């Protein structure tokens, strides 16, 4: 059982990282950014380009090297996120909600098939691999690589929580989430703050993408699709718009899936976990933390 739970937490921490961006964007402009999962994929490919582009980069297979790579991917994916918002969402800020939803779907396809045209449809083997010895925790096998990735994910989430709750920019984000018109009147640069949210959310997804590439070892242009849907689900379970909810939701979904695989088999996993979610949302439509924390973001 310990093994099942650990596996679930590991997958869950990826879901949580991606869910955060989903949740933040929804929190601030009430947009379901369907292209968000594809930023995860984009992050993985940016890492791939850096590794294949710089000779010898892939040889330094260590956790510090991975951290540098994660930083580069975060920065670049973040900038892509900002650009996507500028091009596809900002011009439609006051348009009907559905129109923006469709540009988000369009953006998702653009990214997926754009990457497919550039890199081809076949899965790519990741040049950098992190591996390490196995350690035993409460009778379960876990690799050092998994532990370090979970630590990195936890660290990123902690930094994010600090940024949103304790800094000036974070306060601006929370203010806009509450009332963007009033925030404008108070002298907050709304466009700039929204760009910051996209930067941070996309950067987190990019980080998750690189880490998944380096850990699992294969990337493909559709890798963001299913994790995007799952992260969205995680954000909703947690109470969309709520930061801690997204983290909690991601971990919950990961655990549900792991338990589902162990109990009813891999082919029934999604049936099991999503049936649980339907039940859960029937009884608690606002999600885990949605009602308790009134303030969004």
């Amino acid at each position, binding site marked *: 059982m310990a093994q099942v739970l650990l*596996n679930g937490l590991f*997958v869950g921490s990826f879901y949580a990282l991606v869910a955060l961006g989903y949740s933040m964007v929804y929190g601030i402009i009430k947009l379901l950014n369907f292209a968000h999962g594809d930023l995860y994929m984009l992050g993985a490919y940016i890492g791939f380009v850096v590794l294949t582009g710089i000779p010898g980069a892939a040889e330094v297979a260590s956790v510090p090297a991975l951290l540098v790579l994660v930083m580069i991917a975060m920065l670049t994916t973040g900038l892509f996120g900002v650009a996507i918002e500028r091009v596809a969402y900002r011009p439609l800020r006051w348009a009907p909600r559905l129109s923006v939803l469709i540009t988000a779907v369009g953006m998702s396809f653009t990214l997926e098939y754009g990457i497919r045209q550039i890199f081809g449809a076949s899965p790519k*083997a990741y040049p950098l691999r992190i591996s390490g010895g*196995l350690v035993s925790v409460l009778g379960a096998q876990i690799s050092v690589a998994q532990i370090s990735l979970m630590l990195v994910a936890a660290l990123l989430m902690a930094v994010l929580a600090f940024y949103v709750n304790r800094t000036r920019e974070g306060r601006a984000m929370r203010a806009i989430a509450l009332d963007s018109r009033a925030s404008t009147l108070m002298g907050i640069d709304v466009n700039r703050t929204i760009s910051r949210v996209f930067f941070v959310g996309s950067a987190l997804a990019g980080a998750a993408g690189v880490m998944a590439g380096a850990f699992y*070892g*294969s990337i493909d242009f559709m890798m963001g699709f299913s994790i995007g849907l799952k992260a969205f689900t995680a954000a909703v379970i947690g109470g969309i718009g709520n930061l801690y909810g997204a983290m909690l939701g991601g971990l919950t979904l990961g655990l549900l899936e792991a338990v589902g695989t*162990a109990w009813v088999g*891999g082919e029934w*996993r999604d049936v099991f976990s999503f049936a649980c979610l339907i039940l859960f949302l029937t009884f608690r439509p606002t999600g885990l933390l949605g009602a308790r924390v009134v303030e969004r973001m």
Partner: protein
Amino acid sequence: MLAAAACAITVTACSGGVAGGPQATTSGGPLKFGMLAPMSGSESAFGDYLKNGASLAVAEINAAGGVNGSQIELIVEDDGCDPTTAVAAANKLVSQGVVASVGGYCSGATLPTLPIFLEAKVPMVIPAANSNALVEAGQANVFLINGTGTQQAQAAVSFATKSKAARIFILDDSTDYSVDLADSFEEQAKAANLTVAGRATLTPKEKDYSGEANKITTSKADFVYFTGYYQEGALLNRQSKDAGYDGIFLVGDGAVDASFAKITGADYTKNVFGTFTQTPDMLEGADNWIASYKAKFGAEPGPYTTQAYDAVRVMAEGIKQAGSTDMDKVVAALNALDGFATFSGPLKFTDKGTLSSGGFVIVTIGPAGTFILHDDLLG
């Protein structure tokens, strides 16, 4: 009867026909051979191997005068290894007037095209797809050049027996081909008194299979047979070894690919084996053939190149023997073939349109990271 006239001129092309008279119904144009192959998608590497193998055969046959005096024209359509795309592509081929189908790589994508070709009275020699479902469709116009799932499962069972597997774990990826092979393997393994410790199905196109890996280790298996494709196989192999599994990891032919070692990682290639049809580099006496392939395409031949090459040759022979492109006559001629030389040995079809001998071997990952011959299961 243009072909009869053509026959009088190009005597060499027609003299090869032993039984069939030169009563072809073809009009003077080229014989269009259609090929469905994955030219895009995760299996696209195989699409090129199929296409090249077939083009080589077409070029050779045309250089030798064609079939019944007509040249062959190969038309390749992308099926993307996807049933919906494949159906559209098959309809496109039919509307272009193909007289024969020599394609089919993914069984799941090939299956729905069978009725389309039957409707259009087009005989099919399928080079790679080999699900039992294709055989069970019971269409007389379908011939499989690759060994079937049953034959592949047989090879896997003999390898399991040979390596003294005590507890076997079977995994499929929920696609037609994979489930079929796993079923067949499970049945034959039980019949051979092997212990099946567990069976599971994974969801393809995901990255995390730690749940499945956990099931393998808790089942205390020492022999795993995975019947899906290479990306999932490579991920599962790595993750099951991380979970503490150290037995034999055998994969079906869909997972035998050079990318397997790259994805799974160099430290994880130990004890990885595959059931596979022979590729040119494993065959004796194929050097000349490999050389002409390299001269034409500037690359090494790969998996299913020989099968695609043979599919075209077998189909051409069938049409030649039938002296016509009429489906019933070609089917009868193909059924009558006995001892026609192919890469998998002298050809003879069973009454179900499958090869009478499968030709599966056991491969393993060599030092260069590619699959090489491990055991031909003959001795």
